[in-house]
């Protein structure tokens, strides 16, 4: 308790936080149509979220890494993202079924994913974008067949995430899940997600092809995953929480990644290394087309971790949503 009280004394509400120094982006429009269409998900309570109140960084590393981030700290974000997700049978069930659906799609296409990669089938977009493309290109002969299958798995992902993301955003934002309310506008959301995920597939493949020639496949995959997560990882959340169209969601996700401080990148890099550990842990496992109970168990647990990180990102987005401009922005030079 003493620790909690001590933390509170250092905390200021996010709504009053001005974390952007003059050199940072300034919105031209404070209120946009997208913002007006925003869903009823409230901003997360910020009394315990410790957003940075001052433009001045705190602590040794804070000073070294630049201005303090407006995002809540890592531990708070993870705890606030994890708990509602883990306590909701609906979210857990949907997440598990998401894994089964994607695996089923690959199996039906005759391209069962290797045992070691089962656990990243449900990783946060855009990680699976590259994975889907590479696996299906590997397993199918013919560009048209591969394209159709990639589109197919993208639709499967959109159908699943169109349900899971609003449930997670609602659970994190309101502390409770009301499925009927969360799933309102499901089809429109799915269409937007198809747009987002398709763009991510195209971008991921483009970057992979460009980088692969210089740095090799492995580093190209790392770069696509890391930068994709950093800049596009919040896009589905933005789309759901703000009711924003696909392009605007991607744009705002990229802007959210560029706010001052290292907190967003820290969460992303930890998640990125988690993905590496997961793939390394099972990478050498012999291929088995019929997953065993332990194989499923591991993949399902990692899927739970994926959705917990989604919860953390949702919590962070809800904490900073007011500070991320939705319309065009202009840059201002930093006065010397």
């Amino acid at each position, binding site marked *: 308790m003493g620790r909690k009280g001590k933390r509170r004394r250092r905390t200021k509400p996010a709504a009053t936080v001005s974390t952007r120094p003059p050199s940072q982006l300034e919105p031209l429009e404070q209120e946009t149509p997208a913002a007006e269409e925003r869903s009823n998900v409230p901003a997360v309570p910020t009394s315990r979220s410790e957003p940075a109140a001052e433009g001045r960084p705190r602590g040794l590393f804070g000073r070294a890494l630049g201005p303090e981030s407006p995002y809540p700290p890592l531990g708070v974000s993870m705890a606030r993202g994890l708990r509602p997700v883990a306590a909701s049978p609906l979210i857990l069930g949907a997440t598990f079924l998401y894994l*089964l659906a994607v695996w089923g799609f690959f199996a039906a296409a005759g391209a069962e994913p290797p045992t070691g990669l089962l656990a990243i089938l449900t990783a946060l977009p855009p990680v699976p974008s590259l994975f889907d493309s590479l696996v299906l290109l590997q397993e199918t002969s013919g560009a048209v067949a591969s394209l159709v299958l990639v589109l197919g798995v993208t639709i499967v992902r959109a159908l699943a995430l169109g349900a899971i993301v609003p449930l997670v955003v609602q659970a994190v934002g309101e*502390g409770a899940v009301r499925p009927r309310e969360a799933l309102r506008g499901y089809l429109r959301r799915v269409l937007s997600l198809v747009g987002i995920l398709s763009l991510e597939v195209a971008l991921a493949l483009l970057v992979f092809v460009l980088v692969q020639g210089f740095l090799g496949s492995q580093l190209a995959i790392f770069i696509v995953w890391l930068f994709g997560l950093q800049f596009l990882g919040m896009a589905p959340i933005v789309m759901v929480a703000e009711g924003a169209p696909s392009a605007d969601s991607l744009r705002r996700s990229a802007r959210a990644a560029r706010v001052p401080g290292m907190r967003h990148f820290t969460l992303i890099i930890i998640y990125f290394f988690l993905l590496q550990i997961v793939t390394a842990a099972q990478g050498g496992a012999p291929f088995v087309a019929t997953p065993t109970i332990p194989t499923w168990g591991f993949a399902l647990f990692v899927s739970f971790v994926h959705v917990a990180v989604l919860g953390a990102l949702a919590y962070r987005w809800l904490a900073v949503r007011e500070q991320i401009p939705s319309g065009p922005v202009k840059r201002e030079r930093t006065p010397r």
Partner: protein
Amino acid sequence: MPPGAAIRRHLLLLPIAASLLALGPAAAAQRADASWPTAGGDAAHTGVASGPEPPYRVAWEVETDDDDPICAPVVAEGLVIVVMRESVMALSAGDGSEAWSVDREEGPAGAAVVLGETVAYVEGRDDGASLVAAGLTDGAELWSFDLDDSAPGPLAADADTVFVATSEGLVHALDAETGEEDWSFEVEGETLGAPAVAGGLVYVSAARPSARAGTVYAIDAETGEEAWRFSPSGSALGFSSFAVAGDLAYVGTGDRTVRALGVEDGREVWSRVVRAPFGPRSMPAVPGDLVVGDVLGGVYRLGAADGEIAWDFRVPGSLLSGSPIVAGGFVVVGDDTGQASAIDLEEGLLVWKDTFGSARLEAPAADGDHVYLASRGGRVVALEYDPDAALLAEPSPTTLFPLQALLNFAAAAAALLVLLLVVFRVVLPAPREEAES
């Protein structure tokens, strides 16, 4: 081939498969001699021996101490010849006793080749590499030829000529009696595999990593002139060695495609995409149909005439230098995990397996009585038929059992769901303040 597609194809091709099954044993019986004088069994790399059949037991085993085998064994005149890192060793095929052993200058090498009373092998590396011919009975050196370049692939030979391909792309034809060079031919790129010799042609595959391309060549065995060449699209890495049977030459190319080329002109007769590319020392076996192995451990039976995949099986390790052979009508293969497996040629089911350490197994050899394995972990093993053991009947891990998968999923999901809900709702419930907020 993806398992789902394999199942569909099985259903569609039952009549063809039935006819292939009838052909299998007859084709497997075509090799009845008790020798395996070169990688792939013969100069054309057909890779078929009359026996023994699985299940196997260890007939004898030799630990080679610190000097590990670095390539597949060959068998001739009752001797098993193994090229080791720093020696060449001849073991009695009957009991594994050492017949002779000679020092060898360290360097990459493929399997030796035996012609009559001569055994040839490569020693040294780069400009110090040479091909050595020695007496089969005592290992005494007869002649040597300076290669001036490493030759990591297995050797090949026809009646009176030894063929060797160096890593920088020179194919040498040497007189087996004198060691004099008959001709040499320069291919574009690197050659890491074994030349195959059949019908007066020498078949070599070459990779050009800088150009991300590869080319396969047919060279006149008499004159050393190019007969034809074939350049598939796709990656330069992952070409297998050739096997030749009838009027078709079979090779795996870097675009993970098995190709059948006409021996007359190199025209592609059929091609079939598999899961992965091929090891350079890997070569198809041709027991009537075609059996190939890829670097991911996939073993496939393809129709020799049309390339249709009858079955595929996945062994646990990769087949980087391992290669399937057919003994007694069963596919025998050793992989990089040290596991040797026997697969029923007709059904594609695993009928026997055993592990010989954890080091890579090179391609097996067979002479009718034994299957010989060389492990990079320092072991040479002879397997014989075990009348007391029973055959397994395990499907390939690439075979999907949907209902079993769903049941496994349901069990795992239910357990994890209950666990998480108990932990986060009962053991660690949300603090009241957080819940209210």
